[in-house]
Each structure stands twice: as structure tokens, then as C-alpha cells.
């Protein structure tokens, strides 16, 4: 079957290469747009809309582009696409910042800046990214070629591209870029772009790939200095994975982990978060077997590693774990501890398939700001957690959004948790709240007992809420399920 799909004519060759190339481009554009927009799903939305809208445009104008114009546009498009990959992040900042400032002056939401920038990026992606690919198929069939045959050749190209993406991405991001450029140049050659022009474009593309890493880091440093106001002295670790662009940004005072350009965890000198989410419940239980869902700096492991018998760390992205292990060693101490294991899996799948029970399950996954992450904040997910808790065990999860006020995030989260866990208590400190829930075997201590269990230096500003108090506080709030994660994300 596959030999029958081998391109037989130059036109079919162009279709096949367009199929391969478009698949590689999709992956690259979504990755870079996710970093620029700092929100993977919004990037997918913007890119998908740009992609499919421009396909319509390409179909509509497919018979109006002369072959000479097509040959002239192709090398230009490669240059535009490669520049856009590097420019998306600073462009987003340069476009969003002035609009956000204008919005602030007029008492409008700052989000307008991001919306304006997103719209401009969408147009740029539309024009530069995919418009030319759509012209090949209608042109060829209009010239008398069979639809089945032509479309099959293009889809076979897409299948090859799909197989190439994980293979090249596993080698390096530059390998993916090189594969993309090579296929693009072959496509240009197949539509009749001159040898010299293709050769010159190939040299420029090679220089781009050779300098990509340095340019990417320099641009990221520039962006983080301006976006977050940090002094970034170096980016000692940068990696593109199918899930994220992972970066460690080092400054004179501290290092930070960034996923898709968004700060995830800073090194926290006081370790307050790690204490309340991990050490406090672990001390209450004595010597619990622990599961840690999600890994940031893993300072939670560093705090409890000496007195708990075992810690199972679960994270979807193995490279996030490796980067944190290396660059936040002073906090997680994984190299000196021997009682931990790492499982590369998503938390849902791990909990559903694990035969183990845990005395303490820690939810250390970033806040629910994207759909994929928000699936770990749903009623369905918490039921999976409850099923893996041993009798008397505790599930510990935090919300760094204020419990009172206009935002519903914390209250909806607590309402959902309260629906699943029959026994629980909640600690509130400043604007953060920490939920400790369990099954029928969990005893709910009194507020005074709980306060006495908090380390003396950590008691300041701490207040405990009973189940009855929380139920009154969250009455009427929406329960978050896989049906309505948007109610948590876009609160």
C-alpha cells in the first residue's frame, strides 16, 4: 500500500512534502506560541484558528497565485516562519505591554493587552505559517489529477511528518528545526525554485539553526527581565519537550523554574508553602508513606525526606523532574535521600492503575490555569485520590488564592473537595489555604489541637477552619467536574 503512495510526479512530490512539512510546522508553531502566550491551550486555540482559517484562504486563492509568485514566496515564507519562531515571545510582550498600560489608564482590564497581542500574533501566524500549503491540492486536482490519489499522497506525507515529530524532538529542538527546514527546501525545489536560491536559503537556515540556542536564550533573558522585572544572569537549563519549554532562570538571589514562559516555583527561603502542604500533615501522621503528585522544586521532599519511609514522585514530564532535581538540589536533596522513587506518568493514570495505598498524598501540581492541569482539580480526580488513601490517610492540597473576596477559585475548590472527602480540616494563613482531607478513618482534631501541632515558629497568622465552617463558607458554590473546568480556570 505504501509503495503505491510513493509520489509519481513532481506535483505529487510537492503534495507529499507539503504534508510532511505542515505537520512539523504545526508542532513547532504551537510550542513557540505556547511560550509567547504563556498558556499552552490559548496557544493551541490561536494557532488552530489561524491554521484552519488560512486553509480556507489558501483554498479560495489557490487558482489565483501564479507559479512564478509561488516560487518567489516560498523562500520568503521560510525566512518569515523562522524569524517568527524566535520573535513570538518578545512580540507578545511588546504588543501587550502598551495596551495593558493604556487599559490601566482608562480603568479597563489589563487582559486587553494579552487579547490585543494574541490577535496580532494570530494574524501573523495566519499569514506566515500555513497559507501556502493549502494551494497545492486544489491546483493539482484542477489540472486534472485524481482527487483520491493526490489527497492520499498528501495525507501519507502528514503521516510521515507525524512519525518524524517525536523522533526528531527526542534528539533536540534544533534537530526538529533542521528536519523542518530540509523538508521545506525540498518542497521549494519541487515547485521549481532555482538551485542557487534554494542553496542560499539552505545556508541561511543552517546559520539560523547553529545560532538558535544562543539567540533563544538571549531573547528569553530579555523577556523575563522585562515581563517579570527579574535580574536574570543565566538560563542554565533550557529544553523543549512535547509538554513544555522548560527553563531554569538564575539570578543573583534565586533560581526559578519556568514552564512555557510562566513561573512555576521559585526557591522559597522560608519554605512556608512546603511546610504547610507537606511537613505539617506528615508530622500529624508520624511516619507516612507519601505520594507526591507533580514536581516543582520538590522542596516538599527535602523537608520530609528524613522522617518518612517512602516518597513516590509522579510527574508527566520526566525532564521537569530531572531539571528540578539538578537545579534545586539544595531544596529537594534528592541526591542524599534514598527513600524516593520517580514514576513518569500523569497523575490520573497513576492513581487509577496503582495498587499502592498511601498515608499522605500531596497535590503539588500548579494552579488550575489550563484545562489539562484543571483536570486534576475535579471531583472525578479527587475520587481517584480518595481511593488510594490508606485508612486515616490525608490528602493535602493548597490554594494560593484568597478564600474571601470576589474570586471563587478557592471556594469552588473547597466545595469540590468537600463533596468527595467525608472528613477534613482547612488551614488558612494570609491569602493561602491548605486543605487536609481523608476518608471515614480520618479524625478531625479540634482547632486548638491542630494549632498545637503546628511548629511554634509557623503559628503566626494561622487559623483553622472546621468542616462545618467551610461548608457554610462554600454553600452554593459550583462543584468542579470534567464538565466545567472553565469555571475554575476563568474564575
Amino acid at each position, binding site marked *: 500500500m505504501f509503495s503505491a503512495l510513493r509520489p509519481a510526479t513532481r506535483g505529487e512530490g510537492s503534495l507529499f512534502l507539503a504534508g510532511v512539512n505542515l505537520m512539523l510546522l504545526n508542532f513547532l508553531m504551537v510550542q513557540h506560541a505556547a511560550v509567547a502566550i504563556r498558556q499552552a491551550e490559548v496557544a493551541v486555540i490561536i494557532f488552530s484558528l489561524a491554521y484552519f482559517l488560512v486553509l480556507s484562504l489558501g483554498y479560495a486563492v489557490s487558482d489565483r497565485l501564479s507559479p512564478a509568485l509561488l516560487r518567489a514566496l516560498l523562500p520568503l515564507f521560510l525566512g518569515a516562519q523562522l524569524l517568527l519562531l524566535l520573535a513570538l515571545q518578545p512580540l507578545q510582550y511588546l504588543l501587550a505591554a502598551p495596551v495593558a498600560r493604556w487599559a490601566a489608564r482608562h480603568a479597563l482590564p489589563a487582559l486587553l493587552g494579552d487579547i490585543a497581542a494574541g490577535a496580532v500574533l494570530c494574524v501573523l501566524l495566519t499569514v506566515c505559517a500555513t497559507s501556502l500549503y493549502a494551494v497545492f491540492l486544489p491546483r493539482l486536482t484542477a489540472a486534472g489529477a485524481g482527487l483520491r490519489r493526490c489527497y492520499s499522497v498528501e495525507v501519507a506525507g502528514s503521516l510521515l511528518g507525524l512519525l518524524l515529530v517525536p523522533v526528531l524532538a527526542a534528539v533536540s529542538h534544533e534537530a526538529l528545526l533542521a528536519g523542518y527546514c530540509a523538508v521545506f527546501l525540498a518542497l521549494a525545489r519541487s515547485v521549481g525554485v532555482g538551485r542557487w536560491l534554494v542553496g542560499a536559503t539552505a545556508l541561511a537556515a543552517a546559520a539560523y539553526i547553529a545560532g538558535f540556542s544562543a539567540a533563544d536564550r538571549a531573547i528569553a533573558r530579555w523577556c523575563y527581565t522585562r515581563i517579570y522585572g527579574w535580574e536574570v544572569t543565566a538560563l542554565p537549563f533550557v529544553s523543549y519537550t512535547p*509538554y513544555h519549554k522548560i527553563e531554569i532562570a538564575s539570578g543573583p538571589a534565586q533560581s526559578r523554574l519556568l514552564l512555557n514562559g510562566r513561573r512555576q516555583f521559585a526557591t522559597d527561603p522560608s519554605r512556608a508553602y512546603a511546610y504547610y502542604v507537606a511537613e505539617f500533615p506528615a508530622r500529624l501522621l508520624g511516619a507516612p508513606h507519601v505520594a507526591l503528585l507533580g514536581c516543582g522544586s520538590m522542596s516538599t521532599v527535602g523537608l520530609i525526606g528524613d522522617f518518612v519511609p517512602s516518597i513516590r514522585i509522579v510527574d*508527566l514530564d520526566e525532564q521537569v523532574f530531572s531539571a528540578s532535581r539538578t537545579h534545586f538540589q539544595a531544596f529537594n536533596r534528592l541526591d542524599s535521600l534514598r527513600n524516593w522513587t520517580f514514576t513518569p*506518568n500523569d497523575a490520573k493514570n497513576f492513581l487509577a492503575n496503582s495498587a499502592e495505598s498511601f498515608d499522605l498524598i500531596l497535590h503539588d501540581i500548579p494552579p488550575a490555569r489550563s484545562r*489539562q492541569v484543571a483536570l486534576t482539580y475535579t471531583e472525578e480526580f479527587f475520587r481517584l485520590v480518595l481511593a488510594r488513601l490508606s485508612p486515616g490517610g490525608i490528602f493535602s492540597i493548597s490554594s494560593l488564592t484568597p478564600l474571601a473576596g470576589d474570586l471563587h477559585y478557592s471556594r469552588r475548590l473547597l466545595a469540590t473537595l468537600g463533596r468527595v472527602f467525608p472528613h477534613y480540616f482547612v488551614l488558612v494563613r494570609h491569602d493561602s489555604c491548605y486543605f487536609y482531607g481523608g476518608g471515614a478513618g480520618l479524625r478531625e482534631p479540634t482547632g486548638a489541637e491542630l494549632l498545637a501541632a503546628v511548629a511554634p515558629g509557623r503559628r503566626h497568622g494561622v487559623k483553622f477552619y472546621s468542616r462545618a465552617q467551610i461548608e457554610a463558607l462554600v454553600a452554593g458554590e459550583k462543584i468542579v467536574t470534567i464538565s466545567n473546568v472553565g469555571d475554575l480556570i476563568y474564575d
Partner: protein
Amino acid sequence: MTEPVPARSAGRFADSLLAFTTGLWLALLQCAYFFLLEAYLTSRATSFFIALFFWLGGFLAGLNLAAPRAFPALVVAAPLAYYAALGGLAVFPYHLWLLAPVGACIAVAGALAGAFFPFAASRFPGLKILLLHENNGFVLGLLLSLLGLVFHGRLLLTLPPVLGALAVGGLLLSRR
């Protein structure tokens, strides 16, 4: 159901509507499958790549189905395959061995997409108009899916496959 008709009747509103509605349905079906895998199997990237591989493989097979009634038959088969996948994952959630049978169901949906173009091509003066209408429907389906994913997840998982089949099936019947 229907047979391909000569190009003389091309450009009819009903043909354009069928292309648009099919595109809309395909987008909803594809997004429902992706969400089904993410919510009830695994969020790992491999599952996305495998699902896309099955979709494209099915598309390739559907394009090359010679039977004139292949598309109408797939209008019935694709939602049945989808609900089989949904039922399988509801009964055995998070079991990775289900990826292969669910992949086969995804391939049926891909075949539906692939079979549509040869089926509909003869009704349009040029392929570009057919692609344009189908793709515009796909864009709208994508927008609706993205809203469904965050605000009506269960609705997206349960309703669009059957509603799409009813709409497309109804349009096919109305053209007899």
C-alpha cells in the same frame, strides 16, 4: 441513501450546507476523541500522537474506499464506533490496553472524513469550493469544541457524535 450526482447541480446550497455541516461534525468528533483520551485514558503526549496517527490512517483508508455508499455507511458507523469507545473507557477508565481498540474507533471517524471528499467532489465545480465549505465548518466546530472542552465537557463527550450524524444523515436523505 445517495449517489454522487453530475457536476451540473454543483454549487447548490444543499451541497454547500452538507460540506459545512460535515466539517463542523468532524471537528467536534475529533475534539471529543482527544478529550475522551485525555480525561479517561492518559494525558501523555504519546496518546495524542497515536490518536492523530489513527485518524490520518483512517482518513487515508476512507479516501480510497471505492464503494459509492461508503460515506453514508460511515455516517452510521462513525458514531457507533465513538460510543463503543466512550463505553469502553467508561467501563475500564485509564487502562492503556484500550488505546488500540479506541484507536481503531478513531480510524473509523478518520475514514468518515476521508470518504467524504470523493463522495462530495462530483457535486462541486472545483475541489477548492468543497474544501472551502468543509474547512469553514471545521473552523466553527473547532470554536464550539474549545468552548465545550472547558464549560460543557460531558456534553461534548456525549452529544455531538449523534447530533452530527443526525444532521449529516438528514441532509443526505433530503437530497435523494
